[in-house]
C-alpha cells in the first residue's frame, strides 16, 4: 500500500550512498581519539544530525509502506465484526503505527530524503487485485491476501487478521535484521532506538497473536 515508486527509491539509494561516503570520511582516521570531542561539540559540528547510511534511509522508506498496510488492516477490525480482543489489538496497532509513520516521515524530511506518502485509507471496495502495487517489503500481504481479509468477517476475520499480521510483523523483524546486518547502519540513535523498539514491540505482539490463535508462543527466528 505504499506509494514509494521505483525512481524515487533509486534516487534515495544514491543519495544514501553519497551520505554514507560522507559519514565514512568524516570519521577520525585513527581508531582511538586520545581526546574525544565532547558530544556537544560533535553535535554542533554535524548540525544535530548523526551520520547515517543508505541502509538507514531504505529501512525508513520501506517501513512507511509496511506500516501503512498494517494501519489499513487494523482499520477493518471494527467494520468486519472482529472480536473484542482483536479489536483491542487492532486499535493499538492503528495508533502505534500511525505515530511511527509520522516519525519516519519526519526523520526523512529533516534529512532531505525522499519521503514516501503513506496510503492508510480503507481500500475496501477497490479492486485490490487489479491495483499496481510497488515491490512489497518483507511480510507484506499480497493484493490477493488483502482482498481475502477485506471479504472476511467475524471469527474468520479474526483468524485471518492474526495470521496475516503475524506474517506482516515477521517481515518487519526481517527488515530490522537486514538493517543491523548492513555496515554502518543504526549508528544514528533515532534509527537504533526506533528499529530496536520495532523489534521488541513486534516480537511481543507476535507472541500475543499466536496465543490468541491458540498456537504456542515462539521466538523471532522461526
Amino acid at each position, binding site marked *: 500500500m505504499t506509494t514509494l515508486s521505483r525512481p524515487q527509491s533509486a534516487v534515495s539509494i544514491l543519495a544514501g550512498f553519497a551520505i554514507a561516503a560522507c*559519514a*565514512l570520511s568524516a*570519521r*577520525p582516521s585513527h*581508531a582511538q*581519539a586520545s581526546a*574525544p*570531542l565532547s*558530544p*556537544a561539540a*560533535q*553535535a554542533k559540528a554535524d*548540525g*544535530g544530525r548523526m551520520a547515517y547510511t543508505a541502509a538507514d534511509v531504505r529501512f525508513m522508506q520501506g517501513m512507511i509502506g509496511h506500516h501503512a498496510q498494517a494501519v489499513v488492516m487494523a482499520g477493518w477490525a471494527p467494520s468486519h465484526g472482529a*472480536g*473484542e*480482543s*482483536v479489536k483491542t489489538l487492532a*486499535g*493499538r496497532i492503528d*495508533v*502505534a503505527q500511525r*505515530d*511511527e509513520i509520522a*516519525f519516519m516521515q*519526519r526523520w526523512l524530511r529533516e534529512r532531505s530524503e525522499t519521503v514516501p506518502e503513506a496510503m492508510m485509507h480503507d481500500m475496501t471496495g477497490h479492486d485490490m487485485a487489479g491495483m499496481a502495487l510497488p515491490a512489497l517489503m518483507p511480510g507484506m500481504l499480497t493484493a490477493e491476501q488483502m482482498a481475502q481479509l477485506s471479504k472476511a468477517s467475524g*471469527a474468520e476475520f*479474526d*483468524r485471518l487478521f*492474526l495470521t496475516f499480521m503475524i506474517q506482516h510483523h515477521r517481515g518487519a523483524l526481517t527488515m530490522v535484521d537486514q538493517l*543491523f*546486518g*548492513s*555496515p*554502518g547502519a543504526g*549508528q544514528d*540513535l*533515532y534509527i*537504533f532506538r*526506533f528499529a*530496536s*523498539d520495532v*523489534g*521488541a*514491540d513486534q*516480537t*511481543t*505482539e507476535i*507472541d*500475543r497473536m499466536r*496465543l*490468541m*490463535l*491458540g498456537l*504456542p*508462543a515462539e*521466538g*523471532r*527466528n*522461526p
Partner: protein
Amino acid sequence: MTSDPSSRRPGAHSRTASLSFFAAIGILAVAGCVTPSASAPDGSPAPAWSTSAPTPDPRVGLRSGWYDAGEAIWNLRVVSKTPPSEKFTNPSTPGDRRLTNSDLAFVGNYVFQGNYSGYQVWDISNASHPTLRSAYVCPGSQSDVTVYRNLLFVSAEATNGRTDCGMQGVVDTVSKDRARGIRVFDITDIGVPKYVTTVQTCRGSHTHTLVTDPKDNANVYIYVSGSAGVRSAAELEGCSGAEPTQDANTALFRIEVIQVPLAHPEQAHIVSSPRIFDDLTAPVRHAETPADVAAAAARAAASGRPARPNAPRPGAGRGPTQCHDITVYPAIGLAGGACGGYGLLLDIRDVAHPKRIGAVADSNFSFWHSATFNNDGTKILFSDEWGGGSQPRCRVTDKPEWGADALFTLSGTTMTFKSYYKLSAAQTSNENCVAHNGTLIPIPGRDVMVQSWYQGGISVFDWSDVSHPKEIAYYDRGPMDSTKLVDAGYWSSYWYNGYIVGSEISRGLDLFELTPSPLLSQNEIDAAKSVRFDHFNAQEQPKLVWPATFALARAYLDQLNRNNGISRDRSAAIARQLDGAEKTSGAARRSALMELATALDGDVAGAADKARVRWTAGAVRELANAQR
C-alpha cells in the same frame, strides 16, 4: 544516618493546629460516603479525600519552550533546576537524541545521571544548587546506571558504543571495538571515574538491576536485560539468535546474571543465563470477556485446532525472548520482571539463579516495562511503555488503560489485577508521554509513589487503595516545541533522602520537595524524610524502615484523622499527649510516651482503623524506648 526532624521544628503547635483544620475537611468529605464505599458496585472510584486537583487541569495547554516552558505544579516545590553540563548540551538542536539524559543512581550526596553519550555526576549536598563533579563521555546508550560502594555500572546497548568510549561509532557489522553489555567504573575518586572493564553480552544491556545477596558479601550481582538484537558469534563468541530447537545456547529466552567480585571488579563475568521463560504458558489474562473466550474458540475451530487457549502446553510455549527491566526486592526474596508481553514474579533467594514463580498478562498492555512492589510486598505495580517512550501516548484520544500502570495485589505467587493508573492530564501530540520510571516515597502507613511520564511530567499518587489509585501531587512543563515532537521529559523521578530527583531528558536534573496539603501532612512528609539511605538503586528496592520520631507517630495520627479511624476527641487527646511528651526529655519523656502507648493499645479495639492505631502505638512505644 537518622535524625529526628521533629527536634528541629519550631512551631510544631501551629502546624498541628492547621493540620487538624485540614483533617476536619477530610472528615466531612469522608462522612459523605461513610459506608466503606471503596467497593462502589459500578467500580467507579470512591471519593476518599476532601480535595481534588485544581480544575481545569493547569497542565493542559502549557506554553512550549526548552528552559522557559510554562509550568504547572501542585503539592510540590521546585528546589532546583540544573541544565545538563556543557559537554552534553547542544544549544542549536533542542532534543538531540544522542544527548538524552537517562536513568539515575545515588550514593551519599552524589547523583549519577546516565546519558546516551556517557554520564554526569552531580553533588547535591546543596539541593538548591547541585554542582557538576564529572561529565564522562562514553557513547553507547542507554546508560542505565547503578552504584555500589566504589563501583559504577553503566548499560551499553547501541551498536555505536565502543570499548574505548570513543565518539566515532562502530561502522563494521563485526568489530572487537564494539561495547554492548555492562561497563564497570571505579568511582573511588568521584570526580575522576576510572574505567575498569566491560562485560560483553549478546544483546547488550538496555537496563540492568544490581542485586545484593544477603548471604554473599564478597560479590554483587547484575541482572542484565537487553531488548535489542542479538549480535553475531563472529563478534562475541557463543552468541546465537537461533530458536532453542536449533541452538540450545541461544541468547533468546534468557537473562544474563553477572557476578562482580567486589575485591576484583575487573574479574566481573557472566555466571548464569537463567531461562526464566521456559514453559511459560498463557497466564490468566484479565479484561477478556466471555465473548472473547468464545471468539477464541471460534477462531480455533475455524482453524481446525482444539480450542484450549488457556490450557497448559508443557514445553511448547516459550513466551518472551527477554525482559525489559527487573525490579528486585531482596528483603522478601522476590523480583518483578517486566518481560515482553508478561509481568513475571521471580524467586531470587538464590540470587544467581532466579526462578519464575508467577506470571500475568494483560490484553491492554503493549510492552511490559518495569515493576514496583509496595513496601510490605502485598502489591505489585507494572508499567506499560507503549511506544517505547518516544511517542505521544497521553493525548485525549489515547485510552486511559493503554500506556498505563497496572496494579495488582500479590499473595503468595498469585498476582490479581485491580486497576490501571495513568496520567490524567491530556498532553499534546508534541509531547512524548507514557508510564515510566518511579519509586516509592516512604510515607508511613500508605503506598505512595512518584513516577515519570516523560513530557507528561511527574505524578505522585497514592495506591494504598489498590483499586482506586489517586494522584496527590504533580509537576509538568509545556512541550519543548509547539510544532513538533522533540525528545524531552522525565526519564526517571526517584525519591532519595528527602527529595524527588528527576532526570529530564533534555533539561537536566530537577529536584523537588513535597509540600503539605490535605492529602499529605507535614508530619507524613517529615516521616518520609527521616528514612535515609547511603546509596540507592531504584530497581533494587530497599525495605523501608522508619526511625522512631514524633513525626512518625503524628503521621499515623494525621491519617487516623483523615480517614476517621479514631474518634475526634480521642485523636485530639493523643495529639496533646504527644506535644506534652515532646516538651519533656529523658525519663519523663520516656514514661509519658510509655503511658500513651499503653493507652493506644487500649484504643485499638474501639477504633474504626484498628491497624493504624496499632501502628501508632508501636511508633510511640519505639519512641519511648529510644529515650535514654
